[in-house]
């Protein structure tokens, strides 16, 4: 087997409570690399188009990559691939923790989970021993308690993924947690676990990962660390972590404020930004195997939430549960973060849902009667906190919000769809596309829906010298960024080190070659990214998604921001369609976004052996 890989998947059938080791041919690993690429191949082969995302026929995969469990910067990511409850199409969601490494130490590159357990279960994997355990006593419990239970009763160093009540209750924003505060947040991965009656899964392996050239890996890490330490971005990110992003998006006018009514939130500065978070930081934290240590432990030092401690909050949470709700009280955001993490709910989607409800409330579309007495005015953090709990448990007005903004707007009518901030049913993250138009493309064509992690255009349009208010060259720019991330997500490494050190695809190829002993060039990896993105597009087309789904709410096209650099500017739907058409063309897809026969032929998908389980 290729160095760095185990060459096997573990198939777990929850219906039959059986498991078996499934070899993956080396040729498939060479072609699809791992993570996102391999996930696309497995999705194509294993998930039938007719599968209900929340039915037993959906497949829930946890995948690693060739760099997982090695010392490569933040090689501790895992990704979950499954059919999306939010969009009905492709979904992959990343998080960090120990599970990807422990899977490999146990002898597997990934887990493929099918079926549905008759009653709530948790699964333990210790090398080749797979255990199915009654989880009825854990059902309904918060993710923190369940993870602690596994660490106490199974193994203190196990890698574990867990859902909270939100996943059990099949929320489209139900996420899968790992290492307590890390989340595969988006698109409803937690709901898929919940639908399978799988509360938690823990892995502990006793084996190791052989690499072609360990000495080379050691020296790459030292070089990268030296670069990181000397880089101004690295220094700033090490000091402030992602909360620093708020101090970038606010001046750029892209900080979601009051359900994306505005792009700036003056109250944020000094309160819920880099300085606000730095003031209550008690310790630097790192993901497993990563020298960046961009995470931090914070503790509320006064007020009604005094003593509350979390790892975080990260930028997205500060934006979506802060400025987007006009909440400038950091302890309340930390409380919301804690609740979401324990309830197993995505802070991004939850923030957009509450922001949407608040706007509807302020417009009179929702009344206090509808909300069960909640006064959902912007800034009312007590109401927001209450609503988070109601949503996760599907109680009262929370049961309605649990559906996500797409369906909420469908119920309301009255033009609310214009400001229901989502694409493909996945709520917007923390960058308003109107202040840098590249995100308009990213949010609309990212396979899982509105997402900032498959490409991060602010790197070019805000931190770089690309004009944010033009359509020129944006499709090409986004493809470049997406391909880079696609590569990192196939190696399975975090995309932060790439930005913070920074590292190029060449640098990542050096790691991959030191691990596998192969000789990938950066071009080889870019070609694979093109292939992977086209395969995922084929998946979405097969699932029935069309170019009609590659769109954004009217607010983004037609409304302009009241202030900031984007004041008075509108993208306009025609401009958007122009960028999208360019994107399709450059990908080798037709005008409807369907990959052409020529493009498909280029990647020789039909020559691949199908993976079967």
């Amino acid at each position, binding site marked *: 087997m290729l160095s760095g890989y185990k060459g096997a998947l573990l198939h777990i059938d929850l219906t039959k409570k059986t498991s078996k080791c499934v070899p993956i041919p080396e040729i498939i690993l060479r072609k699809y690399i791992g993570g996102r690429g391999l996930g696309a191949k497995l999705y194509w082969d294993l998930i039938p188009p007719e599968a209900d995302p929340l039915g037993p026929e959906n497949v829930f995969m946890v995948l690693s990559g060739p760099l997982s469990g090695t*010392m490569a910067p933040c090689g501790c990511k895992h990704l979950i691939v499954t059919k999306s409850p939010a969009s009905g199409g492709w979904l992959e969601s990343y998080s960090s923790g120990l599970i990807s490494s422990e899977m490999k130490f146990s002898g597997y590159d990934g887990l493929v989970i099918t079926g549905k357990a008759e009653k709530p279960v948790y699964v333990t994997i210790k090398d080749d021993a797979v255990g199915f355990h009654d989880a009825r006593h854990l059902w309904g419990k918060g993710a923190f308690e369940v*993870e602690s239970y596994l660490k106490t009763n199974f193994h203190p160093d196990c890698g574990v993924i867990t859902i909270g009540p939100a996943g059990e209750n099949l929320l489209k924003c139900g996420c899968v947690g790992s290492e307590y505060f890390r989340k595969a947040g988006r698109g409803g991965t937690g709901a898929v676990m919940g639908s399978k009656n799988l509360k938690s899964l823990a892995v502990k392996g006793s084996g*190791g990962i052989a690499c072609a050239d360990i000495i080379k890996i*050691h020296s790459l890490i030292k070089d990268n660390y030296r670069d990181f330490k000397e880089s101004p971005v690295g220094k700033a990110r090490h000091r402030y972590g992602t909360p620093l992003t708020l101090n970038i998006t606010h001046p750029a006018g892209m900080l979601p404020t009051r359900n994306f009514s505005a792009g700036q939130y003056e109250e944020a500065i000094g309160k819920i930004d880099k300085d606000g978070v730095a003031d209550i930081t008690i310790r630097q934290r790192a993901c497993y*195997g*990563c020298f960046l240590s961009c995470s931090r432990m914070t503790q509320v030092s006064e007020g009604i939430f005094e003593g509350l401690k979390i790892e975080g909050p990260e930028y997205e949470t500060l934006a979506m549960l802060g400025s987007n709700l006009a909440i400038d009280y950091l302890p309340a955001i930390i409380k919301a973060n804690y609740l979401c993490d324990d309830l197993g709910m995505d802070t991004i989607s939850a923030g957009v849902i509450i922001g949407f409800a608040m706007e509807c409330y302020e417009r009179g579309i929702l009344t206090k009667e509808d909300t069960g007495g909640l006064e959902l005015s912007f800034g009312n953090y007590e109401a927001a906190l209450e609503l988070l709990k109601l949503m996760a448990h599907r109680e009262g007005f929370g049961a309605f919000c649990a559906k996500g903004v797409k369906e909420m707007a469908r119920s309301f009518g009255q033009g609310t769809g214009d400001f229901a901030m989502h694409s493909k049913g996945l709520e917007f993250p923390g960058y308003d596309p109107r202040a840098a138009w590249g995100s308009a493309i990213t949010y609309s064509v990212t396979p899982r829906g509105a997402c900032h992690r498959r490409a991060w255009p602010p790197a070019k349009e805000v931190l770089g010298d690309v004009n944010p208010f033009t359509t020129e060259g944006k499709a090409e720019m986004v493809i470049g960024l997406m391909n880079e991330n696609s590569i990192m997500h196939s190696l399975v490494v975090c995309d932060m080190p790439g930005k913070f050190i920074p590292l190029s695809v060449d640098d990542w190829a050096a790691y991959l070659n030191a691990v596998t002993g192969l000789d990938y060039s950066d071009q080889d990896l870019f070609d694979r990214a093109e292939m992977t993105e086209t395969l995922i597009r084929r998946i979405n087309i097969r699932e029935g998604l069309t170019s009609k789904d590659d769109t954004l709410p009217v607010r983004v096209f037609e409304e302009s921001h009241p202030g900031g650099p984007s004041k008075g500017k509108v993208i306009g739907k025609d401009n958007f369609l122009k960028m999208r058409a360019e994107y399709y063309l450059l990908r080798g897809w037709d005008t409807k976004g369907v990959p052409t026969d020529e493009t498909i032929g280029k990647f020789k998908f039909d020559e691949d052996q199908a993976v079967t389980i």
Partner: protein
Amino acid sequence: MGNRVLVIKEENCTGCRLCELACSSSKEGIFIPERSRVKVIGDALEGWSQPTVCLQCEDPMCMAVCPAEAIFKTATEDGDPFVQVDKDKCIGCRRCSTACPFGAIIFFPKSMAVKCDLCYGAPKCVEFCFYDCLHFLELSNKASEKRNKKISALTKKACKEISDRELFRRRAIFSPVASKTSRQGHH
């Protein structure tokens, strides 16, 4: 040089566990934290962590109990003292592991005692600890003496606590089985 010890400034630990990966990859040639001589403990929910590693005791319990005389005291080329296991002599009885109050001895494959040997004077864990948690520092004779006394006192205290706790467990689990063995001899 000649009196260096591993010093842990636990407040600086980020929980990245690169020390384990560096240790295992340099010692075993593969990434296998299970076989790392340095082990990170902690609680991610509470947000703390710290490495733990052999203290290279002046009067090691592991050495005292080894029936095969496989454990001995030696020094790096620069004279830094450390406790070493002679693989050829080790019989895999695990008495050393039972005796070490600090959990510093691991076993693999199956039967061999393995512990930190300071990488013979250039510890890899320190080399890859980027946030100044693990250090390899020279101690003055006075400081060294003080440290040895403290570790010796702690060892005594730990032994008492371990024996208090273990006594009942061992009695309950192993003693009944052992009694049965004696019965079998008297028909």
